[in-house]
């Protein structure tokens, strides 16, 4: 989610509530012997407020599972997720009185810190990476179907080359074919099978020679020079296919960065909610 003007009121409300709770905490901290603790009624109220914020933030995942429910737009939930999650930080710190607490509380605080920082990290990535992806990979595909896009790309190129090269396309490197005279179709087909086919595979290596745009451009330019005028549009199509495959590589890299942090953020958020509930039950009972 991009932080834009639509977040203005959310940010303002969060800041106001954070300042108000800070003032309340200051008054509270002055009034209790031995300093603020989670066990006082003031501390517990901070805890309840913080837990409510965290729970609301955690409900985003539940909201996604029932997109048809008319309980606010996904955008609103995501904004709430961000700002309520951030508001929970001072509230939880006020609840624990800036102390580590016991073993469970320490685990909770560490988990909470990782969740918050991973969330901020993810939010920061989302401000940069989607634009970077649009710039660097205009030929981006649906992420889960990148391998299908690669396969389709390879098939389309092969169909095109078979149409142009004819029978020689299928076996351009056989001894019989090599023994015959030079033919641009065979040159084209040989280039494809020797270099391009492997690059267009969905499981192609990023270390492939054609991943380097300069090298790819040089080789395709030389091929273009060696074929007659009639075949040059075909070479240009091969060049476009190379570019597209390279963009798909970039897209996957950016996609990993854009979604990798969620593998930390989401499971630890679940852990936080489970342990938090345990903490609440034991604390309220005793």
């Amino acid at each position, binding site marked *: 989610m991009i932080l834009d003007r639509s977040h203005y009121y959310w940010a303002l409300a969060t800041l106001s509530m954070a300042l108000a709770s800070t003032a309340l905490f200051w008054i509270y901290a002055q009034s209790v012997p031995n300093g603020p603790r989670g066990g006082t*009624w003031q501390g517990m109220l901070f805890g309840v407020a913080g837990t409510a914020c965290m729970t609301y933030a955690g409900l985003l995942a539940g909201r996604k599972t029932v997109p048809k429910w008319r309980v606010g737009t996904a955008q609103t939930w995501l904004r709430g997720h961000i700002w309520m999650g951030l508001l929970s930080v001072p509230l939880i710190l006020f609840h624990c009185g800036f102390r580590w607490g016991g073993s469970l509380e320490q685990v909770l605080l560490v988990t909470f810190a990782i969740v918050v920082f991973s969330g901020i990290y993810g939010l920061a990535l989302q401000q940069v990476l989607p634009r970077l992806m649009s710039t660097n990979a205009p030929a981006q595909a649906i992420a889960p179907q990148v391998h299908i896009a690669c396969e389709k790309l390879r098939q*389309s190129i092969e169909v095109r080359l078979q149409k142009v090269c004819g029978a020689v396309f299928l076996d351009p490197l056989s001894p019989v074919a090599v023994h015959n005279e030079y033919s641009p179709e065979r040159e084209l087909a040989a280039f494809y099978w020797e270099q391009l086919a492997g690059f267009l595979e969905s499981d192609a290596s990023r270390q492939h020679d054609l991943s380097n745009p300069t090298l790819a451009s040089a080789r395709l330019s030389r091929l273009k020079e060696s074929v007659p005028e009639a075949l040059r549009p075909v070479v240009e199509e091969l060049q476009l296919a190379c570019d597209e495959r390279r963009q798909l590589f970039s897209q996957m890299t950016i996609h990993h960065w854009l979604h990798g942090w969620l593998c930390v953020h989401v499971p630890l958020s679940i*852990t936080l909610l489970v342990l938090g509930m345990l903490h609440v039950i034991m604390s309220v009972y005793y």
Partner: protein
Amino acid sequence: MADPRRLKSIASRYDLEVTRHRDPWLTLRSRLSYIFALGSIVACLPWLLGDHRAFQSRCVSDAHRVFEQNCQNCHDRSLVPLRRMMTFDNTIHSTSDKKCRVCHRESNEDHLSPSITGETHPLSKWLDGADEISDGRYEALKQRLQAHFSELGCAGCHQEHRGHLQLADVADAHCSKCHSTAHDQVSPRRFELNFSEFGHHPEFALWRNRDQTPTVPAVEHPNPPLVKWDGVNPVDQAAIKFSHHRHLDPQLPIPGGKTVALGCVDCHQSDPSGAYFRPLTFEQDCQRCHKLGFPSTGELPHSKPEIIRGILLDRLAKHRDGKRPAAADELGGPTKAPIPAIKINSDAQPSLATLKPELEKLEQQLFAVLHPKTSNERPRVTGLLEAACTKCHFTERTDGAGEAWKVIPPRMPAQWMSHSRFRHDRHSSVDCQACHTRNGHRMDTVPREQFYPVLKDGWKESVSIYASESAQDVLMPRIEICRQCHGHGSTPGSRSVGDRCVDCHAYHHTPMTSESRPGIAELLKAGRQGRRDAKRAEPATGAAP
């Protein structure tokens, strides 16, 4: 170059059955979430089923570590935190006083407990002096405070789960909650009740002059009987004669023609606790150099006048027939002339009437003859048996039949500043003279040798203990001496010099005796015995129809 994708149909690039292709990141995320959720529940099971230590907000104090595995060992009221939050009342605790007293059987003596507001407690006169408070506010205040302390309970001040801190380490705020505001509610004012930290602590009552602090009349403080003001300084009212100057002479002559340099600890020896000093006794601290009696009386015990009279009578009766040998002087001092024999009919038993003149003469020597004021020079020790009672005590003649003389009790307090507590052993790094000076102010740095052999006129006004020639000097420190080290801020558990209320003051005044505090071992023993009895009772119960 035109983007050829635009020329392609979507179908040519993707599989339109999107749901068949789940994002691997999403799959990984879901699996990790399930694993983490289940993992956290499984990891918490041992804690839920038995060992509750992980749920503590912080570990309990060291003394309570044996109970910490099960919350219910102390928390006998459930859902109290919820009630605390709903009622906005932090005085509700999930641990009842009853639970505390399972082990802590000593009574919860506080400022206002009926058993402590007796004759001995400093607040007793204040609380029971209803006649001095005509407007009836006393009763209301007393009831309110009693209700407050009762509601507060043990856990009100002794807050657990603060790490390894001692529970007795109570924060100042618990005290200052009342002591910073009660000055408007209590009349007449007996104590300073308008300060909240050591920096604002008033001068010790011992040193408060009525003229300087008119709002807190020092004369009404329990301590003043020990001292009276001569206009400038308090005068120790102890009925004793003693010169620290004389006894701290670095060349103090002792019997045998030798000299010794006594230090404070030669007489003031710490008690077993190390906090204070054991009371000074004649036998332990004086007798080595000052044997009570004269050659004419023989050595006498440091005892009551009537016992002394009995001993003297006994000795007179035993030697009625002839010359009594002079008492041996261990140091070979000049032999006194033998006491003239009392001419008594040897056939008759000596009666009190016949011995009385001689007895009175000896008693006069012991109880009435004042020791000549010593000169400024060092005394010469000629013999041990040269000390009468009047060397140290004040005496007066009585008309009683059993005793003719009475020694005025010295009225030396076992502890000065009875509202406070002090640990001398924790101040052993500081010289005694640094705190104990003649007027409570800071010590001057004149070396000890300057005061001897003769106390020059210029040094007589010195605050040093070496210039103290009289027992009337009050040698207790003022608060300014404490503030040289204390009062610069400290927090519970910190290593800085303490300046909190509990560092010097006690709330529970009753000492913990072995009778009142049975100890953990006895409780455990009782618990084991109880379990054994229960086991024995089980088969019997089972066999019953």
